[in-house]
């Protein structure tokens, strides 16, 4: 359904952006994205083997502005690009969980620097994934295969870390994405433990979002990304179950969104319209599998509480509005 009403919230499907593209317009196995000023978004594509790795600059109204980065091990290049974050100046930070480094680009994509050393010592990285900047301009990095979160200055000086391998509160097993709320609390997608954990700014465990103890409601299978809206509701990309789970600030499960892209993006529609056989074939088949999320991997919420969900295997972003002034229609229509 295009509009989901649950527990006093209303989520209304809006539109989608993107399509597959080995290069240029489109994304290839995108893993993360960041919302910048002026409707610009940066989308980081994983590609496959030695093709497709890049960061795309696009607008929320479907303009392709360009791309930067490519496969390789040199400055500004990637092997396994994973996650992306913007600092206060709009510079772009991209993690690479094969090269164990963070690459920094200016807003136009010019390479600035990279930092990060492979290892498991303090400040060393093994599989860096999600990143987020705090109010002081420092960056938190999910150090996935070291099962911890590390904090660095924007130039890569190590400031601290929390977490270790395990299942208990505050432990991690291959964590993936993370985000901060406006109070500086840290939410970490604890991938292999099938939960999201919330910590205060010092890394003290506060709360977890996972399956309810008896009913199993609100369960997660390999959560990858997390975001918090202005009202404290928490959105989790439930990668293994191909859905977005929504939780109240206290951890209570609210609802699931499963993807509603009934209208292809303009980029995709152009492709379809160019081939009469494809138009014909689409008229004979149930298109629902095409609407639904496939490997939702990252979620972001903008200042208007619009929810953007990136799908790795559909190479697109679906956008929902959290409607605040929704009026129920007459039920006897």
């Amino acid at each position: 359904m295009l509009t989901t009403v649950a527990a006093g919230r209303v989520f209304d499907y809006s539109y989608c952006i993107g399509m597959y593209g080995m290069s240029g317009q489109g994304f290839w196995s995108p893993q993360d994205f960041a919302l910048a000023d002026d409707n610009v978004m940066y989308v980081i594509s994983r590609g496959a083997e030695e093709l497709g790795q890049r960061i795309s600059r696009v607008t929320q109204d479907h303009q392709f502005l360009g791309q930067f980065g490519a496969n390789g091990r040199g400055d500004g290049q990637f092997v396994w690009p994973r996650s992306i974050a913007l600092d206060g100046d709009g510079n772009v930070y991209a993690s690479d969980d094969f090269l164990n480094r963070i690459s920094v680009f200016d807003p136009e994509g010019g390479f600035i620097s990279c930092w990060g050393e492979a290892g498991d010592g303090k400040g060393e990285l093994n599989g860096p994934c999600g990143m987020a900047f705090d109010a002081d301009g420092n960056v938190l990095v999910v150090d996935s295969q070291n099962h911890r979160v590390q904090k660095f200055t924007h130039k890569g000086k190590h400031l601290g870390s929390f977490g270790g391998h395990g299942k208990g509160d505050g432990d991690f097993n291959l964590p993936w994405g993370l985000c901060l709320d406006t109070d500086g609390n840290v939410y970490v997608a604890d991938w292999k433990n099938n939960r999201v954990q919330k910590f205060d700014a010092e890394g003290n465990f506060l709360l977890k979002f996972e399956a309810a103890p008896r009913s199993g409601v609100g369960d997660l299978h390999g959560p990858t990304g997390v975001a918090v809206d202005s009202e404290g509701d928490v959105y989790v990309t439930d990668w293994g179950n191909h859905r977005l789970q929504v939780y109240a600030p206290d951890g209570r499960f609210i609802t699931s969104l499963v993807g509603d892209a009934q209208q292809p993006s303009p980029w995709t529609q152009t492709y379809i319209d160019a081939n009469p056989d494809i138009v014909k074939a689409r008229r004979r088949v149930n298109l629902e599998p095409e609407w639904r999320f496939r490997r939702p991997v990252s979620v972001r919420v903008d200042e208007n509480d619009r929810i953007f969900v990136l799908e790795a295997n559909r190479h697109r972003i679906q956008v929902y509005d959290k409607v605040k002034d929704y009026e129920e229609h007459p039920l006897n229509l």
Partner: protein
Amino acid sequence: MANREDIALMGHLMRRAGFGASHDELREMTEGGYEATVDNLLNPERFDPVDDDLLFRYMPGYEGALGPPLNQAEWVYRMINTERPLEEKMALFWHQLFATGNSKVDNPPELTQQIAMFRRVGLGKFRDILVELAQNPAMIFWLDNNGNHMGAINENWGRELLELFSMGVGNYSEEDIKEASRAFTGWTIGPKIPRNPLGRFYWNFEYRPEDHDDGEKTFLGHSGNFDGQDIIDIVVNQPATARFLSRHLYNFFVADEPQVPSWNITPPNDPDAIDQLVAAYDESDGDIRAMLRVLFNSDFFKQARFSRVKSPAELVISTARLAGNFNAPRPGFNSLAFECAYQGQELLNPPSVESWHTGSEWIDGGALVRRVNFAANLLGDTSLPGVKSIVANLRSRGALSPDDMVDACLEMVGPLEVGDITRAELLDEARGAGELRWDTEADVAESEKRVGVMLALIAASRDFQFA
């Protein structure tokens, strides 16, 4: 304590029922016993499957792979990293028997689905495997059964079912082919979402009763209103089917046979062995697991060491497993998939429905150079974890004479049995530099280098080409 002969036999079993095993793995299996190992191989559900989540986290392009070689690389990853080696080896066996190719199907995820089906049912009853195959969308499209309609049959699937997949040439008539094809009318693929920039969408088998010829048919002497399952029921009860399948299993697991197209005029190399497998088929109602239990525990199997030329997939996978540098998601699996193709076996894209010719036909001048270079480069690289482990094993034995060094290296890569000419060449190399010593750092560095060279020489030998 496992003795050398027991380990050699276990190495033979794991080369055939899997993709080889390290010396440490062989030692551990040998402690458990040969028949117990066979039992474990035949019951793969006792071991964890490949962790799909972990694979798709790091290699998202493998899931619903948009094009080759990504789908081939995904399978290579599984063959190297599986803890269920026979399940994967059987998938390769069925792929070679029921050869389906991307050259026509042009849908890599559907071919991957077919391999997953082989993984799921490949050790079960032959009847069930044929039914799954007949309903597999990639196969339906590959052999045109979607164009096989009531009143306008397409014989492609019906013909190959009998000729290549079950009975072999000479055991049925042209009329049987037509009647079988009538029975499979209406077995097709449902309408599908066409490819688009959102990726691929899976095809689904669909039975259309309005397109099915429900009239009476006469097939291999039986008459009735047969549908596809009835045809398969008749096929699997034919003596020719038991014999044809047995010969395929023998050719794949035991020793090279003549090429398949000549089987109707060329008798098997070991008729007694085929008889034993046929008996197992008959006694078990065509159960593949039961046939393989007989095969792996038989004397004819145990005595057939190094009597098969490794297929390119076997050579590439087993060497990569031994080298130990592909035991987790990482870049580079595409290159292994390409390597199989360069050596003459492009996985998921066989040359035709007749599949690849095997045995000595895997080898020609170009393929041999690629095979030798690939294996020698990997096993000669002392920075790789598997090779380091071999060096560590040799070092743990202390100083080694040149003869002992050669024996130890051969033991570590198979154990590999070599002929006199190869042994003489290896000894010549080893004796040239004297005893292998580990007393000083300089000794260690030199000895590591010499072991690498020796392993590369072994990998380049004629004997290494055989499984």
